[in-house]
Structure formats: C-alpha cells, structure tokens
C-alpha cells in the first residue's frame, strides 16, 4: 500500500519525471445531449493527448458538436432522432450496438464519462458505456448533471440511472442542477450558472489529467491512480477552492471547505480514497503544502489511499487553487493486485446492488493489517503529525453526516424529498 506516495515529501524534488505515464490514453466521452454540450464546453490548455468523443442517437446534435470524434447509434429505431427521454430505449439501443461502442474504447486507459442522467441516452446508454469501458480495463470517472428537484419524474429517473452508473464506473460525481444556484456570484445569470457547472467538469478532469500526464512538483503515475481508484465507486465528493496573496494556500483551504459542491445532500462527508490537486505560483511552499494536504486528509477522514499532486504554474502568480475528488469505497477490502481482474469485478457487481448508498462509517475497516500499517505510519510520522492540529476539532466523525442521512427511506412529498433543504429545492441562493 505504501508506495512512493508515502515518501513524496521526503524525496520529491522540484520535478519528477513521469515516465510511467507515457503512452497512457485518455478520452472524454460525452453521452447524450447534456454530455455533448459539456464536452463542447470543456476548455483545456495543452491537453492534446486527450481525445474527445461524443455519442448520441440524435444525428443533428452530433453533427453540430465540435468534438473530434463522433458516434451515432440506434439509427434503425429512431431514424436519427432522439429517444424522447426514454431511458429503456437508450439502454436497449446502446446494448444492440455495443460492438460499435467497444471499438471506440479499445486501448483507452482513462475515461471521463459526461452524461446528463435526466435524458434517455445519457441515463440509459451511459451506464452501458461505463460497463463496456470497465470490461476493457479502463478507469472510468463519470461527471453527471442531475435534473432539478422540481423536474419530478425526470429527477426520480435520473436517481435510478445514477445508482446504475455507480455499479460500473470507478467514481461518479453527480452535479445536481439544484446546486447551480449556489454557485457563482450573487447575481449570476442562468447562463453563468450553467457555465460554472461546465467549469466544474473541466476542473475535475484537469486535476486528474494534470497529476497523471503533466510534469509538476509532485505527481503520481497512472498505475498508482488506477490502483487507488480500482474499487467500485460509492458516494463521492468533489470540491474546489481558491485563494491568493501571502496566505493563499490557507485561504484556498478555507474556500474549499465551504465549497457548495461539498454541501449537497448525498455528498459523502468522508473519503476512503482522496485525490488532492494543488496548483499555485512559484511561491508555493513545501511546508504549506504539507500542512494543508494533511488538514484536507483529516477533514475528509481520508485513509491510506491518497493521490496527491502539486503543480507550479508561473502564470498563477500569487493565486492558489485546490481541487479534491473523493470516493467512499464500497469494497471494504480493496484488492491488493494492481487491478482486480475485470471479470471478477463485474461478477461482484450483481451481488448487492443495494449497497450503492452504503457509507464509509458503516463499514469501518479495522482489519488488523490496516491498523498495523496505520501504526507504522504514525510512528514514522513527519513533524506536522505531532504538531497540534485542532483547527478542525469541531468536525467530529459523528457529526460529519447529513442530519437525515441515516434514514433508510426518503421523505417524499409530491415527488420532492422534504429532507433535502428547501433552499436547494426552491433555488434560493445562499450567500456565505
């Protein structure tokens, strides 16, 4: 378990060569209408090695897109038009032409799946694409917009698709439309809010790609990323923060901890697996990185599996950006092999689909092996481990869960879950 990640702070110099990442292929795949617009909205600098593929049944939507690779399917049934929001149709059509989809997935190691789960293709075909990609041995991260709460039936349908997708993808990051209003400035327009959602996807993808593909101060190689995220994804968390000035790093941390994306229902408050990516100008200090990354790990109860990356970008000046992505593992014993055989993972999927909402706290892993390795880690502890870190003492474990999180059923009233804060469902912007 203790790979080079453990020794980063001791051994890493300003730059490390990422030879292992050579030849890794990544692909962004947009499925369905919302997926296509997200792909078109992505803004990457210097990411030529990431291909963009869009998949849809709607020929016109595909034709209008700017993506470099395009795939249409289901033509025989829909004559090139949409599915009309029919998830089952979207799923069936994708299954029928899965060989066509498979061809596009060959040789790809890392897949970013973007799909709006309220639609027929996004909701129906995206889980199929994720499954096929996993069968090819790819690591699948999915970013999925969810309809507003007030779009009652569509919202309910999207939640079903979400749990289906969670069975297949390594990590699914839901982007509820309800959260749109909580983003951006105080009087953001609708357009700005949607653009902000698109930026979230870019942030997530960029964080992962930067760590794996670009040479920076602290990186990890792809096989490590793959090992850490090899389990099935449970609940996830995704957040970002930025700061600037002399206290930029701390300011970014404070901003991160109040990020609206981390304060939505169904967002995990703890992460078994955590990816932290910090970008900053030349003034980024080693001790600062060390203490901030530790605080992030503590705040989200991260275990051994932390992917940490830090890059210096001279263009940022005094600005610091932090992006985190975490997953609550569903498999208490993460396979020790580099990657679990795909067939075995697929077999396990069928076993207990109801577990897709199980949280970290219920399956606290206290296998002797793990505790002993924790102990050695403690013993080896770097200076900051001993330093008193009571900044977040008020974030105790039992308080980390949403207040109604422990209830088995949802509190539905006319298609809305009353346990979800009213301000989120009613689109009232909260300024803090």
């Amino acid at each position, binding site marked *: 378990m203790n790979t080079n990640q453990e020794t980063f702070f001791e051994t890493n110099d300003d730059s490390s060569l990422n030879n292992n990442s050579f030849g890794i292929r990544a692909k962004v795949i947009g499925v369905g209408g919302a997926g296509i617009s997200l792909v078109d909205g992505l803004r990457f600098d210097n990411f030529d090695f990431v291909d963009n593929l869009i998949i849809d049944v709607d020929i016109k939507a595909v034709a209008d897109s700017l993506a470099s690779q395009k795939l249409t399917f289901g033509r025989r049934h829909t004559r090139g038009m949409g599915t009309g929001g029919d998830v089952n149709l979207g799923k069936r059509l994708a299954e029928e032409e899965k060989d066509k989809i498979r061809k596009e997935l060959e040789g790809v190691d890392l897949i970013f799946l973007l799909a709006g789960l309220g639609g027929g293709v996004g909701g129906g075909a995206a889980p199929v694409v994720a499954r096929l990609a996993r069968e090819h041995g790819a690591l699948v991260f999915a970013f999925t917009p969810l309809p507003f709460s007030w779009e009652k039936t569509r919202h309910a349908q999207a939640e079903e698709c979400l749990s289906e997708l969670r069975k297949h993808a390594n990590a699914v990051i839901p982007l509820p439309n309800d959260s749109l209003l909580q983003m951006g400035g105080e009087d953001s327009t609708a357009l700005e809010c949607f653009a902000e959602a698109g930026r979230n996807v870019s942030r997530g993808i960029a964080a992962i790609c930067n760590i794996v593909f670009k040479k920076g101060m602290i990186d990890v190689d792809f096989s490590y990323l793959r090992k850490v995220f090899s389990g099935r994804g449970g609940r996830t968390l995704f957040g970002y923060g930025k700061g600037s000035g002399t206290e930029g790093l701390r300011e970014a941390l404070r901003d991160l901890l109040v990020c609206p994306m981390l304060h939505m229902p169904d967002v995990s408050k703890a992460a078994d697996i955590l990816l932290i990516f910090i970008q900053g100008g030349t003034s980024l200090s080693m001790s600062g990185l060390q203490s901030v990354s530790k605080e992030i790990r503590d705040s989200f109860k991260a275990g051994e599996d932390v992917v940490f990356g830090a890059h210096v970008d001279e263009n940022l000046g005094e600005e610091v950006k932090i992006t985190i992505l975490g997953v609550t593992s569903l498999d208490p014993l993460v396979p020790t092999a580099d990657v679990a055989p795909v067939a075995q993972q697929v077999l396990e999927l069928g076993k207990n689909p109801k577990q897709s909402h199980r949280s970290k706290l219920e399956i606290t892993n206290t296998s002797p092996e793990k505790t002993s390795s924790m102990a050695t880690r403690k013993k080896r502890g770097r200076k900051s481990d001993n330093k008193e870190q009571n900044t977040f*003492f*008020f*974030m105790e474990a039992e308080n*980390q869960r949403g*207040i*109604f999180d422990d209830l088995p059923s949802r509190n539905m009233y006319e298609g809305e879950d009353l346990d979800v804060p009213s*301000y989120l469902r*009613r689109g009232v912007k909260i300024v803090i």
Partner: protein
Amino acid sequence: MSKIIGAVEIGTSCAKALVGEVTEGKSLNIVGKSVRKNEGMRKGEIVDFRKVASSVHAALEEAEKMSGTTVDSVYLAQTGAHIKGSFLRGSANVASPDGRVSVDDLQTAANEAKRKQPASGRSYVHHVRMPIQLDGRSVEDPVGMIGKKVELIYWSIEGDESAIRMNLDLAHNYGLEVADLILSSIASSTMVAGPDLRRAGVLVIDLGAGVTDLALYRNGNVAYTGVIPVGGDHLTGDLSMGLRVLEPYAEELKLEYGKAQSDPSDVDQQLWIIGNKTIGDRKVPRKTMTDIIHVRVVELFEIISKELGDLLDTSELGAGVLLTGGASRLPGIEQLASKVLGVPVTKANFPSGLGNELAQPENSTVLGLLHYGLEDHGLPGEQHKPTNSGFIKKLGGLIGI
C-alpha cells in the same frame, strides 16, 4: 381517594414523562415530571430502539422518583408520518318496540363502525367519537330517548403496526400498562384549545422537532388530523448544510438567532458560528441564516395548506390557527404562517394554573395526554375505566398483546 396516572410522550428530540395525581375523581395535580434527551428517533419514528428505551426509562424513573410513587399505567402519545385518519360510520335501528334508545343499540352501531379492519400491517391508534346522531340530530346522550335509528361516526386514526408496537413495547418493557394510545395532535389540542375554541372552529399546529402534528376542529368536533414529517430538526439540517456548519452549531444558531422572517437590520449583520472565536470559527451573514429558515417555514405551511385544502376556511375557523410545540418558539413564525395560510394565526396559550415550568409550548402534548385521558370518551352507559387496559381491548388480538 386519589389515583396515580402517568403520561409518556416519546418525542423526536426528548422523551417526556409526567406523573399526575387525581383526587376526588376530577382535580389533577402533576407530582412528577421528567424530560430526557432522545437520540434514537428521527421524524417521530424510532430508528434506534435501545437508545430510545434508555431515555424513556430514565425519564419514567426520574418522574416516579420525583413523585414518590409508582405508576401502573400510562397514556402514551403516538405520532409519525405513517399515521392516517378517516371517518368510519356505523348505525343501528332502535331495537326496543317502544322506540326507546338503549345502550345496546349504541354498542351495535359502534361495532358496525369499527367493523372495518385496517389493511394488513396497519392498526388503529385511536377512534375519536363524534356526537351521536339520533334520526339525523346530534344528541349528547340518546339513551332513553325515542327514535328510529342511531348513527355513530368516528374519526379513526390508523398507523403502521410495527411502529405502534415499538412505541407500546417501550412502555411494556418498563413494566407499565398502556391505558390508552392517544394521537399526539389530539393530546396537544386538548391542552391548548378549550371547548369554546373547538366549538368556534380551530386548527392546532404542533410544531415538534421531528414532525408537525395537525388537528382541525369544527363545531367542537375533530374534522381532520394529520402528520407532516417536517419539524424543527429540518431547520437545523438546512442551516447545517447551507451555512456549512456542523449540526450542533446549527442547532445553537437556530435557538439563539433563528427567526422566520428577515428584517432590514439583518443585512450586514454577521454571526460567529461557534461564538468563542476559536481557530476555525468563522462568521456567517444573519440574512443568509434567516433566508434558509424562511424558505423552509414557508414550504411547511404551504404543505399544510395543501393537505387541508377546503378545510382551511376562514369562516369555519372562528378561533383561527394556534401554534404550539417547540418549533413554535421561532420568532415571527405566526406572522409568516398567517401570510401563507391566509387565516389569523397566534401562538397558543395554556390554561392558567399551570406552573411556568410546565406551561411551555413543547409540553402541550404530554400535558394533553393526562387531560385527554381523564375525560370520558366512552359511549354513554359504558363504564369509564381510565386505568383499565382499554387500548389492548380496542385492538383485540390484532397486535397480539
């Protein structure tokens, strides 16, 4: 001769126990009282039986100790989102040849009304009797009067059998008999809305921690009861998520600074989350906090309005709407409720003579249990036996106790 009776309300935030002494059959003295924090419940339903049991038993023990006596049977409050109410009707032709109504006729009508069994997995909690109808006229006690047909109408409340059973088991495990299971909303309205208000027409809204209980009276009789699974805890939950603070801090902020409607002074006002300026403490705008509460409260009263539909008729609600329960302490909630419901809303008062410590909005249910339990709700001619295990008889073998 005096008699000891007990009342237990297992609420979402607290378990409450009262011990009352009835002297001369009528006057009631409260001789024991205890409130214990309850952490095993969510929205009026038990999620952790053992936690609930320990707080209920601790509350009972303390109340008994305080009173210096022991209690044999208690009135127990029941609520929860699973509770539903409906009218049941039964009638009987007057049997005697001279046309005089007998107690047996009433019994026949009552049996017919209660003949309808709830669906499987459900049981009756409570039957609230309406005035007896003799040939279409409302009569207090028709026994001995001349007529052709008596009709009985009950507002019958049913709920999830396992939830009710767990509630009963909590009393049984302490070695107590349950004299009667009483719907929480009926209990609290007994306390805060006297007979004159009920005759004028009144809606009592008991805003608890986990759920909101509703009871609507028209012409002195229950016309509707309902439970909405939203309560004060939802305010705390919303604040916790919206302000990005932990639940205990959100709860404190709510109690200290919460209000239903923002006013101009809130702008630019900042509140410390923890208050002692510890590292990690930060400020939140008071306006934001009020906004979060405001939308939740508006939504709650909108749901209440939707649930009541045509029953929410100003002309039938002479006494307006009364708010009680712990969450009714929220400043400004009655004005906001009045705006949403379109009916005059006031905070409920308690009858005089209660000590200050008891006359608090969160106590209306547990106090109401004793008062409701003391009143005679049986049929005329039926013997009133408050300490008999009436509830167990009512359910018969249905839940097999």
